[in-house]
């Protein structure tokens, strides 16, 4: 613990409390996106779901689950990887990954909140929907697991994990006078870094991690079952849905952790805080997940093309050669090209942070594309009843709301990193008096 006590205002480590021009610009842009999202959502509330591009399946030739549900699946997927990496760091004592544990936990909490909001905006009657969920949800339905385990259990576990893991650093930060001292003192909650407290924290975080891992695998698999258990919907019904959901969740989350870690590294002006070994580990982990997911995609493709019944044939044609082909092949390219690049870096053992960021962004775009393809085409081209083929295009309201959610997420992350150190404080980091 630091021993230097001063009554003057202090410059806190990792740029905490220092609102730089770049940060203000980024937050201003995020706030604008949030305003766009709020305006779009008000429009949706006032005119009803007709303001969106969603229409009834079959009778209206549309899709009743569209961009919002696509983003729900994507957001929850990102959160899955965040907490998985944070938990693995604790369980297997992966020392080299400790610096990114808090970033991963933060990403989990923020994206879970965004996922919850994405579900709410998809409901025509949000308040009624939320109340009735707690009133009537049935455990026989995979939605029960999604809402109870993902939104409640998973979010609670992640918040507790983030809070307890930050107490030591909060205690360090609270020793020095700053505008945030009261907040840091509250977070520390009397922590004094005694050997007993350290041992207690190790034990708690280990058992929390052990609890969280199965919880989140069940929760994310349940989200896959929402689609995978629908017998009457070609393209959804299948055993690969749950494991493919979990794998793509890992891909998108790991990609975003890389991007956020690089932003944090630049923000704290300390490249040694997050060394290349951390990025090499994340790159290899991302590569392994992308390869597994590409394998799932290949198996799925071969199954679709082999002795396909009529409706499945219609669906596979739409995916591979029809109106969704550009999203399908675009997603394949956005997974395959980063995989080749990552493999090259792994073989040569020369990791380039810029390339890793590009790979992280690319696999996230691919993940959004793939989530869209999971959600939409089975509704427009997969009806077993004799309806005409349908179509779905999101309206500006849906794009606006989704942009607003991203803006909100960026604001939450931006506010956090200016209120609390995004990387664990090392013993070498002293809080220095402001000049």
């Amino acid at each position, binding site marked *: 613990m630091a021993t230097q006590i001063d009554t003057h205002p202090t410059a806190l480590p990792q740029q905490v409390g220092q609102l730089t021009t770049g940060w203000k610009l980024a937050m201003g842009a995020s706030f604008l996106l949030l305003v766009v999202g709020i305006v779009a959502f008000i429009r949706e509330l006032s005119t009803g779901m007709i303001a969106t591009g969603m229409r009834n399946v079959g009778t209206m030739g549309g899709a009743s689950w569209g961009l919002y549900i696509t983003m729900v699946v994507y957001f929850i997927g990102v959160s899955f990887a965040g907490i998985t990496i944070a938990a693995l760091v604790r369980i297997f004592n992966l020392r080299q990954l400790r610096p990114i544990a808090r970033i991963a936990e933060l990403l989990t909490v923020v994206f879970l909140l965004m996922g919850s909001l994405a579900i709410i905006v998809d409901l025509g009657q949000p308040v009624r929907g939320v109340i009735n969920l707690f009133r009537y949800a049935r455990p026989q339905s995979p939605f029960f697991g999604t809402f109870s385990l993902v939104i409640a259990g998973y979010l609670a576990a992640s918040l507790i994990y983030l809070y*307890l893991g930050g107490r030591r650093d909060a205690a360090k930060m609270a020793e020095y006078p700053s505008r945030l001292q009261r907040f840091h003192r509250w977070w520390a909650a009397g922590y004094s870094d005694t050997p007993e407290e350290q041992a207690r924290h190790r034990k708690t975080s280990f058992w929390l991690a052990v609890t969280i891992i199965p919880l989140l695998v069940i929760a994310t698999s349940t989200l896959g079952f929402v689609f995978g258990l629908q017998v009457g919907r070609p393209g959804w019904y299948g055993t690969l849905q749950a494991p493919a959901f979990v794998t793509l969740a890992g891909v998108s989350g790991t990609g975003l952790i890389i991007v956020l870690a690089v932003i944090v590294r630049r923000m704290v002006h300390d490249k040694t805080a997050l060394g290349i070994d951390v990025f090499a580990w994340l790159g290899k982990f991302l590569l392994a997940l992308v390869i597994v997911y590409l394998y799932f995609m290949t198996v799925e493709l071969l199954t679709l093309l082999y002795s396909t019944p009529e409706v499945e044939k219609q669906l596979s044609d739409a995916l591979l050669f029809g109106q969704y082909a550009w999203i399908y092949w675009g997603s394949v390219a956005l997974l395959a090209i980063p995989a080749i690049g990552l493999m090259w870096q792994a073989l040569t053992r020369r990791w380039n942070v810029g390339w890793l960021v590009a790979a992280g962004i690319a696999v996230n775009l691919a993940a959004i594309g793939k989530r869209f393809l999971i959600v939409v085409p089975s509704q427009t081209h997969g009806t077993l009843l004799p309806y005409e083929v349908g179509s779905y295009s999101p309206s500006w309201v849906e794009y606006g709301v989704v942009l607003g959610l991203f803006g909100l997420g960026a604001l939450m992350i931006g506010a956090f990193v200016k209120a609390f150190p995004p990387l664990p404080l090392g013993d070498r980091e002293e809080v220095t008096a402001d000049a």
Partner: protein
Amino acid sequence: MRRNVTAAMIAGGIVLMLVGYLGAAPWGADTVANSDPRFSFAPAVFVIGVIVALSAALVYELMPDRRNK
């Protein structure tokens, strides 16, 4: 004391989860009308159970030992 409260919270959380789950899942009901939860807000009880059990970690870390007082 701290260990006892933690254990009680975990046990209480599991009991709430069981009560909520069994209340929300009327196994054996064979009609839609009978498949509503046995009592209103049973799913909420399940969710509260999950949160109570997980919050035991907070108690374990934050509650002071009696001998340290």
